[in-house]
């Protein structure tokens, strides 16, 4: 639609610019605060132009937050969750779209309904399962009359505990299902005629075709799992070894509780460190991300 309305154009552009400023302002404040020394940052009002201590603050924050270890943990968890989510989403959607079995639609809706049950809603039972992963099986077996004692499998304070409970994904399954449904049936049939089995078709035809889709999913999921706060906080007590970056942020900001005024410059520098990886991932994958979501890839 082509419309010529200069006044309206101006207003919309102005709203756009104002929103952008409103969005970027806090980030700017973080950046500015991270670049001043302790005295300057605690002045009132705080200066709005960057100072010269950015790198000092960054290295101080890095050391104070044990970021060597913590960033590595976060990367492991975020990559693990993202990879797991993509695998599960692609496989479950493959099953739902390409195989004809009873209860297929029921299973799809069950998966879909879990959208309504995010981790925060089911956090206590999930914690109970994480504390003893075989517990539910034991309970089921006992309930049907098989009295058995399964060994305890504890996921607390481990990477699997940080990753596995976050891996199930209804969004991903749904995204993949929609994508698989756009692939013409003849492609599957041609592969069958060529002698390809289902798994080969999945790996050699479907997955390569879903590259953009995968990138979109990876972006969303990486950022989401990087930002997880509640679950790691709950499941990790061994903070020296298994703390994630988002958890560690609170430690760099000593609150009034500890008696000292907050060291905002280091805290904001730590913020900058923590938000860098998801920003990088988004920038690197955003071209694919947009294409995956509007799915006009040829």
């Amino acid at each position, binding site marked *: 639609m082509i419309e010529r309305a200069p006044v309206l154009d101006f207003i919309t552009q102005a709203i756009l610019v104002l929103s952008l400023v409103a969005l970027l302002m806090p980030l700017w404040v973080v950046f500015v605060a991270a670049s001043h020394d302790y005295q300057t940052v605690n002045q009132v009002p705080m200066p709005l132009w960057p100072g010269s201590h950015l790198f000092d603050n960054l290295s101080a924050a890095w050391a104070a937050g044990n970021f060597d270890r913590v960033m590595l943990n976060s990367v492991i968890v975020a990559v693990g969750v993202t990879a797991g989510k993509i695998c599960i989403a692609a496989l479950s959607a493959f099953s739902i779209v390409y195989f004809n079995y009873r209860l297929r639609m029921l299973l799809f809706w069950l998966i879909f309904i879990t959208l309504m049950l995010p981790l925060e809603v089911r956090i206590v039972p999930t914690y109970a399962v994480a504390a003893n992963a075989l517990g539910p099986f034991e309970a089921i077996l006992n309930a049907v009359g098989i009295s058995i004692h399964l060994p305890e499998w504890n996921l607390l304070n481990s990477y699997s505990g940080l990753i596995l409970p976050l891996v199930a994904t209804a969004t991903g399954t749904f995204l993949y299902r929609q994508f698989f449904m756009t692939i013409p049936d003849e492609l599957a049939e041609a592969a*069958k005629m*060529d002698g390809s089995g289902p798994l080969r078709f999945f790996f050699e035809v479907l997955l390569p075709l879903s590259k953009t889709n995968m990138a979109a999913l990876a972006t969303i999921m990486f950022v989401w799992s990087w930002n997880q706060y509640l679950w790691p906080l709950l499941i990790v007590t061994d903070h020296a070894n298994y703390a994630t970056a988002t958890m560690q942020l609170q430690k760099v900001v000593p609150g009034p509780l500890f008696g000292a005024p907050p060291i905002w410059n280091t805290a904001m520098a730590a913020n900058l460190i923590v938000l860098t990886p998801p920003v990088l991932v988004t920038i690197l994958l955003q071209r694919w991300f947009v294409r995956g979501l509007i799915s006009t890839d040829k």
Partner: protein
Amino acid sequence: MAEITLRNIRKSYAKTEVVHGVDLDVAAGEFIVILGPSGCGKSTLLRMVAGLESITEGEIELGGRVVNQLEPRERGCAMVFQNYALYPHMTVGQNIGYSLKIAGVPRAKRDERVGKVAASLGLEDFLDRRPAQLSGGQRQRVAMGRAMIREPKVFLYDEPLSNLDAKLRVAMRIEIRKLHQRLGTTTLFVTHDQVEAMTLADRIVVMNKGVVEQVGSPAEIYRRPETTYVANFIGSPGLNLIAATADPDKGKVTLPDGQQLSYDTKRWPDVGYGPVTAGFRAEAVRLAPGGITGSFEFAEELGSGKLMHCNFSGHTLIAHAFGDKAFQQGAAVSFQIDPSAVHLFDAETGKRLAEADGSAMAPEPRKAIAATLSV
């Protein structure tokens, strides 16, 4: 030896039967076209042969072995799909060679065979392109190459030319025919286009509503349609059909408005009194005085002649006429129809009436191109 044998093939979806018992024997090397309107079950039949649809009832034999329970890849068929179904993320070479890759043929051997197939289809220069970078005709050729490289016992084509424009369709039709001459592979070809069927087939299987109406060579089907359905479906235009009453003593049928049409009593000795369906080709009609008379409606210009649509007591009949004479709408036109060109069908079942022996392949009378229009 029969390469493909279908025995009483039926297919049902839930409770709806869509293919009602098809029997067919296809000799090795034969080019069979399955022709019918959309929804007649022709594609379903082909897909059952390919192994892409389960067979509800009956047996399919390929090369002497029953394949009902075999996977598509074990049947030795290769298929060309209507929308080509090329793998979009693979190059032309990879598309053609994919079945070999799956079969574990080493790369060097594979490349050699892909090269040969591509050369025979004129695709050598496109091996590194993606399907999206090809034209419709080239994609079609890649699809054919993908089928050829497996050196199948049977080629299956599912309306492969429907997505091409008219000119390309004719060109690809010729290529498919040449390919068949060169390779001699038994072929099943599904189409709804009767011109494709007539030009390609050794034998045509005409299907309608899940049953086979007639199997025969293109000439047989054109000259001696077994049912009114086939008669009307084949030919461009189809056979003119009129409800009439037969009078075997006079060797005539009476049209609803009382006009009479002679038929060949030697060819149809057993016609009884009563209702029949009479039919004749537009090409067998000659504009001449003294025949049956109708009123002119309009003409379709073909260049080589024209198709005159005329009204005979409510029926629209089409005559293929030569010459430049123009008619006013509503003008009276008189046609002569050679008695030997009149076909008779049962008025109720639509089946062709029994003919005397030896007249089975009586040729249609050919009229001289130079015949002039006269009224």
